[in-house]
């Protein structure tokens, strides 16, 4: 059964007013409850949908209503009657003159005069002026006028007309009332409803709950000022009524996740770094002791900047230090890569391909001890698909300290695994990165994702740190948080993280 609290006052009042077995018609509700016809139809439709009312019978009622033209003719007479009356007073008049005197359109005069002369009442004299041949109006003209006057009382239902009136009506009415015809015809469906069993029960509920439909829908400042609220009853709200949609201002849930990771890292004592999107081969690779011929530095791995192709200069002493390290180890204790360092290639500009670039930059300005991190956008030459983006975030950082070592690196990874990834188990395996030695990969058992590689890490090679002015050991780490972000957002396609689709972003939720 319908929740009586969800009923509209129009429904409530109607239900309370009617009894089982009675005929319920729009006319009755309009008369007895003072509803407007629209309100009445609304209430019928709502209550029928709730099975409180059912249709008993339905018939089409045709009625006739005066148009503005019809009203004027009813009051002043039809054009034919008026022409007749005018000609009674005057000898003979030209048609334009008649139109002017009566204030009527020439076309109306024309057709009215036509009907009069056809009936033999009028005729034209030699001067082309109309005069009366007979001083008696035809019956039909008088009856038509009477029919119009009858309409002044209100719409005429077809069923109340005599046979003669019906015949006359056909001549003066048009469906959907063209403006120039005196009557317009309307058809309406007259439906008779009765209360159903469901309706009866609902009515009883209404009585029991003492809901009258007179309850107040809105508390107004005026009521508060006047105090009328004190005796007022308020319309209760149904709790299962559908709610309307609200579109709030919101943070992007992926952005929220990154914010959370940044907060976590700062809480662990890390300071944030950042840098430009356009880098050069020096910082992106050379400073990280990746040989200039390294396969990951190929044209098929990084994006080159078209213009300017090269940066103006690489800062000293870093350039000389790094070049020497590549060629013969410089002062790092390494034998180097044993090739001739290309000073032009090193200035070539690219889009940052790894977050570690910023760790290298940071080494030149780092404090000891120090912990630094960045969540930074990187670019790879990859076919874009569900697991590869043209650009993506990497989370990277370093720890510098006089005594940091492998065991600290493992400790750090364990801390990330539990604090950031919520890992249940942690496993370390030897890894390989050109810029760290030793290198460690950390695999974790995630409560939802199972075992996966959380990140890569290691101790920066002396060939990386010494040329950049750091003698202390530096732990370097990178975390792949995108998989966890996808899981957090219930997504499985990396491209979705940067979705431009407004509706999709609006409705996306974090876990």
């Amino acid at each position, binding site marked *: 059964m319908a929740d009586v609290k969800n009923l509209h006052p129009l429904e409530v009042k109607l239900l309370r007013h009617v009894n089982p077995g009675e005929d319920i018609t729009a006319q009755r509700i309009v008369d007895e409850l003072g509803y407007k016809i629209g309100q009445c139809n609304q209430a019928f439709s709502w209550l029928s949908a709730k099975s409180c009312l059912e249709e008993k019978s339905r018939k089409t009622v045709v009625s006739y209503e005066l148009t503005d033209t019809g009203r004027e003719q009813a009051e002043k007479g039809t054009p034919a009657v008026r022409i007749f009356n005018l000609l009674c007073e005057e000898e003979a008049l030209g048609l334009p003159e008649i139109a002017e005197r009566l204030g009527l359109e020439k076309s109306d005069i024309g057709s009215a005069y036509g009907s009069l002369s056809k009936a033999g009442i009028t005729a034209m004299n030699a001067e082309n002026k109309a005069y009366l041949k007979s001083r008696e109006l035809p019956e039909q003209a008088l009856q038509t006028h009477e029919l119009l006057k009858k309409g002044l009382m209100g719409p005429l239902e077809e069923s109340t007309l005599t046979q003669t009136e019906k015949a006359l009506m056909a001549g003066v009415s048009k469906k959907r009332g063209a403006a120039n015809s005196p009557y317009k015809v309307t058809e309406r469906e007259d439906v008779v409803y009765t209360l159903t069993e469901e309706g009866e029960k609902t009515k009883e509920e209404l009585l029991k709950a003492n809901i009258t439909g007179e309850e107040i829908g809105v508390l107004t400042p005026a009521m508060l000022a006047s105090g009328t609220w004190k005796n007022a009853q308020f319309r209760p709200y149904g709790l299962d009524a559908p709610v309307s949609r609200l*579109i709030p*201002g*919101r943070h*992007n849930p992926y952005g929220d996740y990154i*914010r959370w990771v*940044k907060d976590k890292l*700062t809480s662990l*004592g*890390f*300071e*944030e770094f*950042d*840098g*430009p*999107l*356009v880098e050069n081969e020096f910082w992106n690779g050379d400073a990280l002791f990746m040989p200039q*011929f390294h*396969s990951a530095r190929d*044209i098929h791995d990084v*994006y080159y*900047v*078209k*213009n*300017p192709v090269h940066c*103006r200069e690489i800062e000293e002493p870093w350039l000389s230090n790094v070049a020497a390290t590549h060629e013969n*180890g410089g002062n790092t204790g*390494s*034998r180097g*890569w*044993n090739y001739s360092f290309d000073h032009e290639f090193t200035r070539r*500009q690219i889009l940052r391909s790894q977050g570690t670039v910023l760790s290298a930059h940071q080494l030149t300005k780092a404090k000891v001890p*120090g*912990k630094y991190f960045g969540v930074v*956008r990187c670019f790879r030459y990859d076919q*874009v698909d569900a697991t590869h983006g*043209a*650009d993506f975030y990497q989370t990277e950082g370093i*720890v510098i*300290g006089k005594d940091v*070592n*492998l*065991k*600290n690196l*493992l*400790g*750090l990874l364990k801390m990330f695994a539990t604090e950031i990834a919520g890992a249940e188990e942690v496993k*370390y395996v*030897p*890894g390989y990165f*050109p810029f760290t*030695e*030793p290198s460690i990969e950390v695999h974790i058992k995630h409560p939802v994702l199972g075992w996966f590689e959380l990140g890569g890490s290691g101790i920066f090679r*002396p*060939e990386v740190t010494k040329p950049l002015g750091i003698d202390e*050991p530096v732990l370097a780490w990178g975390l792949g948080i995108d998989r966890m972000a996808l899981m957090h957002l219930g997504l499985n396609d990396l491209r979705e993280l*940067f979705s*431009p*689709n*407004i*509706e999709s972003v609006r409705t996306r939720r974090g876990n």
Partner: protein
Amino acid sequence: MPKMETTEKLFWSLLGREYTDEELEYVFPRAKAELDGHDRENGVIKIELNDTNRPDLWSPMGVARLLRNYENPQPLHYDFFSSKNYTADSEGRTFIIGNRAKEVREFSLGFAADGKTVDEDILLTLIQSQEKLCFNFGRKRKTIAMGIYRNDLIKYPVHYDGVDPDATHFVPLHMEEDLTLRQMCEKHPKGIEYGYIVKDKPVFPYLSDDNGDALSFPPVINSARIGAVEVGDNNLFVEMSGPILRDLILCASIMACDMADLGFTIRPIRVIFPEETEFGKEITIPYYFQDSQSCTLEQIRTVLGEDMTIEDAQEALARMGVYSVTDKDRVFITVPEYRNDFLHPVDVVEDVMIGYGLENFEPVIPKDFTIGRLSPAEELSRKVKDLLVGMGFQEMMYNYLGSKAEYLDNMNVDTSKAIFIANPMTENFEVVRPSVLPSLLKSESISASAVYPHRIFEVGKIAYLDPLDNSGTTTRNSLGFMLADPANAGFNDINSMINTLMYFLRKEYTLSVPENETRFIPGRCAQINVGGKAVGVFGEVHPQVLENWGCSVPAAVCEIDLDSLL
């Protein structure tokens, strides 16, 4: 990362016993390898290798050698190596390098192997090793190309030289037509793939025997006769060519050790160069060239954080196949013949770590106290984001690469300030985003069905050309926001939002009429100035821009350079 396959049959025989998957998963990390799959039905094991500086591990023989030794450390004796102080007997096999070779591809060298019949397993394994070494270590044959030939058919000495590409011809492998070297570059699939390495040189590399019979056109293709090794052959000649001598010698050593492990007898060859090399004018291959490396116990302890003894370290190294002697607290290692990755003492330390077992190191939290801090840009961006969200905006996040059409053409702006990529993969990703606004309009263009009003924003990076910077570019933190609505998305709406934003950011600002602004309706846009400097722009988006994007609802947008507000 290189990936390889091996049959169970071959792998178990190399390992000396069968391993369970659990055992493989446990021991593979010692070789920086991962079990990539095990197809029991066909008896195939797939392995992924993670160390790009250890090409010796890119074969079942290399991985098995390391694992075998890890379980039962025993010094290996490959007695076919020559060195600075010892020259093995090459039994009259010589390999002569001509003096025009350096004009195209300077070095070539090789060795022979017999005593084992090539079966299908061995053939596939050798081809796989050849591919991995040439593709990954040899940079797609640029620095190493390898050929294996039928030694029975070769009349020594073998000759390698630069030759006239139009006068030299033979029938290449997998073809029946006799082609010149230049024709091979145009017609043979391998020529089309690798011909570019040599095709602009005055001479092309050519390998032939003393009868003048062709062995190959390195680095492109073998000959169809001597260069067609098949199942049943038991006498092979292995050759490699390239511009870096050390890489070739190492590669030959790896192949020789692998083939010895497969049961071949390695037959050295004396290679005679036209000029002195760093190892002399004549080198007998395989050749041990590696320098010794050492590290101190102190270095091991400092890096690993473990108070191990020098014996612990030596034992750990031995498990990695690295044998050492000590002098006081210094460990001197003998670099294995098939390795050349000990650049620095830390490389020795890493082998100690793996040999010792990573599971035997206790994780310890670093004890230094440091203060965590967000960057000033992040602090400001959070403040701005919170204000925008408070004004009912949805935060968006976008890619930073896009097309010229979207970032520039659609926006009615020219290319003069945009950073283009020289090697775009597709034109969809060829420009770095010079503004947040095109990203916002892209959203609008695909979101007509989302309930209006649309209020979206992003705080993100943009980059454009800037002649004042060393890089000629600048990267900025930028705020962009957009209001799109059929009825209320005008200048005044955005204006009051900017007023609110600036009030809470405590920034005094003025508005002025922007110059050369083509993105907005003229007279319905403004430049935002702080301290007399332009920091942003806003206005009603020009109908032409909306039409370019296919947007059917009016929009007003704003972009503010946050770095200028710091």
